[in-house]
């Protein structure tokens, strides 16, 4: 053991004599790039507010999807509750998730191959009806997968979207302190535990939330579907369950993740 410590001493001894390349002065370049963004960019509260306003302005200017999209981003104070898929007349054509801007539609097995983490599926919902993979430059570092579930027994379906539950997964961690500051008034956050993992049940009127992705970048996410959301930090995978769910339904779904 003492020989090993001596060997470590030798390694430490040469640290001071390493011929490192000269450290460049990064200050000017970093400052230039930071100030290239407006000052308000650094304020997450303002950023969140601006994001909602921009989304609202853009979407509300587009009459055919005004109502549907407003529901997705929770610009309304209430969500339509129906116990079954409503008549298809309000539904635009095409796959359910495509209208929600979830990325590229794919298969479950292709999605599993496309991401570096093990996808978690809520077994109690059966096989997802659609699967989407998204890897945006400004999105989570390792991409995002969304599972789309149409009508499911006992879960209200949004008459506007035809979706009952969205399960979105990305690699990252949730900063609870920050989390609490950004969801805004009119929203309650309740810490929960699911299968030993920390989670948060968000009810009320959440519009956006932030999490820190696997590269340490703060990511702004818009909740797309319903007023209530359960977010689970499953050992480095953030799982977001959105739907017009009761707290118990959401917890049961999360407990069936495997």
């Amino acid at each position, binding site marked *: 053991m003492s020989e090993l410590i001596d*060997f470590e001493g030798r390694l430490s001894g040469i640290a001071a004599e390493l011929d490192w390349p000269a450290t*460049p*002065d*990064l200050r000017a370049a970093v*400052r230039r790039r930071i100030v290239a963004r407006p000052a308000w960019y*650094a304020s997450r509260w303002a950023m969140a507010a601006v994001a909602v306003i921009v989304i609202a302005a853009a979407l509300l200017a587009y009459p055919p999807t005004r109502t549907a999209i407003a529901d997705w981003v929770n610009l309304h104070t209430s969500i339509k509750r129906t116990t079954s898929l409503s008549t298809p007349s309000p539904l635009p054509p095409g796959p359910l998730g495509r209208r929600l801007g979830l990325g590229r539609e794919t298969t479950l097995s292709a999605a599993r191959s496309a991401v570096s983490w093990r996808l978690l599926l809520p077994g109690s919902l059966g096989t997802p009806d659609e699967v989407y993979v998204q890897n945006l430059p400004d999105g989570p570092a390792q991409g995002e997968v969304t599972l789309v579930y149409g009508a499911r027994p006992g879960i209200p379906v949004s008459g506007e979207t035809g979706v009952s539950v969205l399960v979105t997964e990305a690699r990252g961690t949730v900063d609870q302190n*920050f989390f609490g500051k950004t969801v805004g008034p009119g929203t309650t956050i309740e810490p929960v535990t699911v299968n030993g993992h920390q989670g948060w049940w968000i009810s009320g009127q959440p519009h956006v939330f932030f999490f*820190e992705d696997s*590269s340490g*970048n703060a990511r702004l996410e818009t909740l797309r579907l319903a007023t209530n959301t359960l977010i689970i930090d499953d050992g480095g995978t953030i799982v977001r369950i959105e739907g017009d769910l009761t707290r118990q339904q959401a917890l049961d779904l999360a407990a069936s993740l495997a």
Partner: protein
Amino acid sequence: MEGRPEEDAELFARAQRGDIDAYEEIVKRYQQLAFRTAYVITRSAAEAEDAAQDAFVKAYRALASFRTGAEPRPWLLRIIANEARNRVRSAGRRQRLELRLVEGFRQGDAAPSPEAAAVSADERRRLIGLVNELEENDRLIIASRYFLELSGEETAAALGIPEGTVKSRLSRALSRLRERFERV
């Protein structure tokens, strides 16, 4: 851990309020650590400079996720190392590490430490050569701990591994290095 944690805390608090001068001071304080860490990972000074610069820009935008009172080094190192690793992945090729020892004593340099003085020049050159040739994980953990002089927590942050894994991985890497060192 470097000293002046209270000053760091104040700087980070100011930067979180949008004070760019405070953030510039943070960059000044940590740019050597950032650049050298990125250099060990990317093995290229040019890539390391780009990675460190990008990392500081990203860190600024993620400042709100920095917890008040936390140690800044692990938080920064995680962002810096991720950026450097992403560059290595997208480059799709690996350069040979260029870590070298300073040749001879240069005027104006500080006198060598007692530990350094105890190790002969030949031995030092041989050791650094062996470290450069180590398998990637071994090389990174030894360089992090002994050349970048990172703590266990900082090494874990830089390598993206649990802190509990650092000790065991380091122990195995040291054994392999020592075995090669004693082989000749």
